[in-house]
């Protein structure tokens, strides 16, 4: 019970941090309004999915270095399939790309289980493979996205019964993020499978001895990670309208947000909410620094320093808690 409280406490304090940052943002830039919040959420979207992808695997006691490459591959695949195709064709592209992410993720897990090579090495190798595949699909940024897909994350959606003032603060992108994550995560968390994922992350041997199918659970965890990464790739294509074969900085960002979000890198602890709030915090910090007219390069230093400081602080707290 105390563990539960502590974990929720971490998420709650992260959320408080987010609110505080938000107030600071308003102080710096009083004109910061719902439109700016909407663009913040749009910028967060691919990061949030990358973080979700990383979180599932980290909870299962692994790590996935191929997240960013997977996003690049799914993004270019979607963009090149939709290039010059009809709007309706995109209805087929979306499930296809998601299935591709799921299968490629499962292949990651399968390779780890079958070869018994450490996950960090396997996903490093698949990072190269997926990157190469992305370059084969599109050798330069290009492709297109269907209009309705792009419209899916821009603007807001009127919710009956809510005044316009509040409704303006709920951008479509945020709703999309919440829906996609909830549809997958909440049933999973409540199922036996979700419990198994936590179990193998906590102690593989104990899980095995209590009858958890360790290999199968691990493969499923990586498959889910691939699925989330495919969502991230789609989000990239949706927000930019094209696909880029060179992966963005999503790997580092995902690992940072996972740690910041209170998920132990050893596995078995934490949830999905914390990392996603963490990713919002990290992006809002970046917005603030930009609003303060700080040199973007200095911004990178500050971001790195914050990340390191937070991680050190978190480690320090857990150390204290253990003593």
């Amino acid at each position: 019970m105390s563990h539960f409280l502590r974990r929720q406490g971490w998420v709650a304090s992260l959320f408080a941090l987010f609110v505080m940052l938000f107030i600071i943002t308003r102080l710096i830039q009083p004109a910061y309004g719902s439109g700016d919040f909407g663009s913040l959420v749009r910028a967060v979207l691919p990061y949030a999915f990358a973080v979700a992808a990383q979180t599932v695997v980290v909870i299962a006691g692994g790590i996935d270095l191929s997240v960013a490459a997977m996003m690049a591959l799914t993004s270019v695949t979607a963009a090149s399939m939709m290039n010059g195709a009809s709007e309706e064709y995109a209805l087929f592209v979306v499930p296809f790309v998601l299935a591709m992410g799921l299968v490629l993720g499962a292949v990651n897990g399968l390779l780890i289980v079958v070869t018994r090579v450490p996950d960090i090495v396997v996903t490093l190798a698949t990072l190269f493979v997926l990157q190469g595949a992305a370059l084969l699909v599109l050798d330069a940024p290009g492709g297109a996205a269907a209009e309705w897909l792009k419209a899916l994350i821009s603007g807001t959606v009127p919710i009956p019964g809510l005044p316009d003032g509040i409704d303006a603060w709920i951008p479509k992108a945020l709703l999309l993020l919440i829906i996609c994550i909830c549809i997958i995560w909440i049933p999973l968390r409540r199922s036996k499978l979700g419990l198994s994922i936590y179990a193998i992350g906590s102690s593989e041997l104990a899980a095995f001895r209590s009858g958890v199918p360790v290999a199968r659970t691990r493969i499923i965890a990586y498959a889910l990670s691939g699925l989330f990464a495919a969502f991230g790739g789609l989000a990239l294509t949706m927000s930019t309208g094209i696909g880029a074969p060179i992966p963005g900085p999503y790997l580092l960002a995902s690992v940072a947000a996972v740690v910041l979000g209170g998920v132990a890198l050893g596995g078995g602890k934490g949830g999905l909410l914390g990392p996603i709030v963490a990713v919002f915090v990290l992006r809002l910090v970046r917005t603030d620094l930009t609003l303060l007219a700080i040199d973007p390069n200095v911004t990178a230093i500050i971001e790195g320093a914050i990340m390191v400081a937070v991680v050190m602080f978190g480690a320090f707290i857990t150390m204290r808690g253990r003593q």
Partner: protein
Amino acid sequence: MSTTAIQSVPLGRRLKRFMADRPLIPLIILLVILVVILQILRPGIVNERWIANTIKFAIPLAILAGCQTMTMLTGGIDLSVGTVATMSAFIMATQVVNQDPAVAFLLAMMPAVLIGLVNGIGVGVFRVHPLIMTLGTSLIGTGCLQVYQRTVIASGAKIPDFLAWLGTGLTYGVPNALLLFVPLAALIVFTLSRTGFGRLLYAVGDNEHATRLSGVRYWQVISALYVISSVLAGITGLLYIGLIKAPSLSLAEPLVLPSVAAAVIGGTSIFGGRGGYTGTIIGALILTVLTTLLTILQMPEGARRILFGLIVLFVTAAYLRIVEER
């Protein structure tokens, strides 16, 4: 009894056991196979000049892989080596324009020591996961480098003659870089196998708790380790700039992931406690030859990366099979 046992074991099993006892042999065989394939694909390519070239390009990778080997022995990893190498190379190239080379050298090594120290304190004292810690410091380092670049944009850059000589020069067909690498490699091998510090690295990686209980100051070992790793990366940067001769802000970044791969192929366990530097050197050579092979096949960049990834995975898996099934 033992003689009958040996006689009754089939040849394949005995071969396997032989290889498992000497894990370097399968690696060397693989290296030779790769070279033979190269010779078949492009007859006459394997000559003195090619060998010298391969060694020249393998050395920076091998030193960085040395950083990975040592940190991996303790169960860690150092992903900041690429940034550190780039920083020291870039600072050297820009500072040497106005400064004495010795001063420029000291300035170039400063960020390496600093980043190593921060890594060491983060991992050793605060117990942050090494992956996160070194990724974070490499992010900070890259940011600093970008800010620094702005301040020296007017002064330009040049490659000191000495570094160019060391990086690309040949003496009687032997790369000069070996002058740096051979003593360095010997020192690393000696440190790992014959000194107390080296044994501590294995001990920490094998069972940290037991090591702690037997009176080892964990944080001191780890701090020293990460500083050494960073300094080695800094030196690699200087060597690499002499080889590439074009300072850029992402000079050594492409070497980071291959350096991890080289250490893993060389038989160092990423979970700590097992491995050594000689295997890593051969791992670096294998990766370098592999890159040449893939370049010669004239495939598109994408296909080359796919093959690279698959081969790294396959080699690691096969190697683990051989070594572990005793």
